[in-house]
């Protein structure tokens, strides 16, 4: 308990100094960047979740209107969620009226309980509740295993507003479009588009530099990427990795990665390779192009194989 609070206050201090003084930050800093006017991002670490990073592994952030604030994801633990909340407080006194839970992955949602006292609408995809019910127990166990005591207070928060299709929100002189997608990264992916700056928050529909992950369907993911590519986008925020490349370069890199897996897995199935052989062989030309390839690539091939073998 003491440990987690000690680290937490370090996080909050870092957030404070990061925003006000813009000084070099310590390793555990909770840094935020304004990627477009009113759009603030905190970039999560590529490292595996650990007591050192407290599950600060996904990009999270917020959009500030003239009336209120919308948070996009809350990070992988209560301390990260609290640091985000503190970062918002340093920017504005406006209330947090919406928290978007972009999809049911623990690196994105376990900080949500930090916002309970603000009584925002917690917005999620219509498929989110079923997946949350199915996964929360094992996600909580794994969080305790990885963070130990620091996992305390990282509770499951249920959405209060579900989206099918599109939902337009008004933050006060700033319209934001929340869009629910068909199965891709997961079966409950949301994106958030700030219409005034054309800033698209893609969450895990886009990985930049970090190996993309399939927990939905590879064919669906490729189809959704085609639709995303057609959007008029000025700025973008991926779920992992930086926002500084020119759109749509990183989307195309991800599309290339999935196309390689799709084509090579289909060929492996045609050539009667087993799922294990496929995971050993498919996509190796991509190995040096992505961070954490060893951790996630084989899983992607496994999922692709189990999907494509029935074609």
């Amino acid at each position, binding site marked *: 308990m003491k440990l987690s609070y000690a680290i937490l206050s370090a996080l909050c201090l870092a957030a404070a100094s990061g925003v006000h003084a813009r000084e070099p930050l310590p390793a555990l800093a909770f840094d935020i960047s304004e990627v477009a006017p009113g759009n603030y991002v905190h970039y999560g670490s590529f490292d595996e979740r650990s007591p050192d990073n407290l599950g600060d592994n996904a990009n999270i952030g917020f959009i500030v209107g003239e009336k209120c604030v919308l948070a996009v994801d809350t990070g992988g633990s209560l301390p990260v969620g609290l640091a985000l909340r503190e970062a918002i407080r340093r920017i504005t006194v406006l209330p947090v009226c919406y928290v978007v839970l972009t999809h049911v992955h623990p690196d994105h949602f376990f900080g949500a309980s930090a916002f309970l006292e603000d009584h925002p609408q917690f917005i999620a995809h219509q498929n989110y509740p*079923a*997946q949350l*019910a*199915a*996964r929360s*127990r*094992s*996600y909580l*166990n*794994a969080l*305790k*295993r990885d963070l130990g005591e620091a996992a305390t207070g990282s509770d499951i928060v249920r959405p209060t507003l579900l989206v099918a299709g599109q939902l337009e929100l008004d933050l006060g002189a700033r319209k934001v479009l929340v869009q629910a997608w068909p*199965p891709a990264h997961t*079966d409950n992916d949301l994106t958030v588009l700030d219409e005034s700056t054309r800033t698209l928050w893609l969450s895990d529909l886009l990985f930049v530099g970090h190996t993309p992950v399939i927990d*939905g*369907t590879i064919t669906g993911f490729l189809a959704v990427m085609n639709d995303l590519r057609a959007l008029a986008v000025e700025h973008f925020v991926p779920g992992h990795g930086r926002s500084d490349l020119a759109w749509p370069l990183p989307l195309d890199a991800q599309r290339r990665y999935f196309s390689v897996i799709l084509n090579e897995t289909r060929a492996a199935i*045609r050539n*009667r390779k*087993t*799922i*294990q052989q496929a*995971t050993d062989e498919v996509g190796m030309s991509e190995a040096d192009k992505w961070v954490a390839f060893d*951790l*996630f690539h*084989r*899983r*992607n*091939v*496994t*999922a692709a194989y*189990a999907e494509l*073998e*029935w074609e």
Partner: protein
Amino acid sequence: MGEFRVSLRQASIAVLVLLAAMPALANEKAEPNPALSQYWEPIKQLMFGDRIINPDARDVIRVYLNVRADDASTVPVVVKAQMDQTEKEYIKSIYVIVERNPSPAAGVFHFTPQSGRAQVETRLRFEDYSFVRAVAEMNDGRLYMAQRWVKAAGGCSAPNGKKLSESLLGKMKLRFDDDAISYHKPNLVQLMIRHPNESPLAADFEAGQVPQFVRSVKVTFDGKPVMDAQVDFSISDNPNFRFFFTPEEKGELKIEVEDTHDRKFSHSVNISEGVPLPGG
């Protein structure tokens, strides 16, 4: 078969209760000593009683899988006999056990001397980091056990991806490893079954509701047993099995599958040497 079903279900429930009573024990990340596992002893008692299990299985059976599982809901595992099946000495059954799953007995696979090779390959779900144990039961009753530690978690409660339409349920596909069948030698076959293989942990299961999962798979060639398996929801959705069979002449390879809702599915193909095979 009916009796077995009841006892399997009771065993599953007993272990479920057992594990529910000891939560949060499974938090270590490093590989524990397989001989000291607190999970194994009650499972062993339930499945094998006081029978002696030889822990040195090197020359009998081996388990192959990746220590770091890529997808906890689909972990490929291969259990391979290290000896030939002969009339005199053969592996009668292979038990595949995921010891920290709520229902640890993933499958029991029965073989005969005609199976060619006692080998089974399937895909497992993992609820937590766990040992996978493979116990070989010889025709004279001796037991041997091999195991592997696997880092994977969340597979049992990871829900089924896509909803399966009723018309696909029980649909099967057979794929063969070679272009054509050869007589008098073991041929590798892959059986794919369209089935959600529901885990009762996967959705908001109401108490008393019976999850639908495949509970038995029977493979025969011209009426003679090739492989017979009792399986559980520790097997991934769309259950998938690879095994050998040794045809001596042309005949019908037949698959019969039953699930926990008493539905029966069957599929068969006619095999003859040198003729191109379906699948692939």
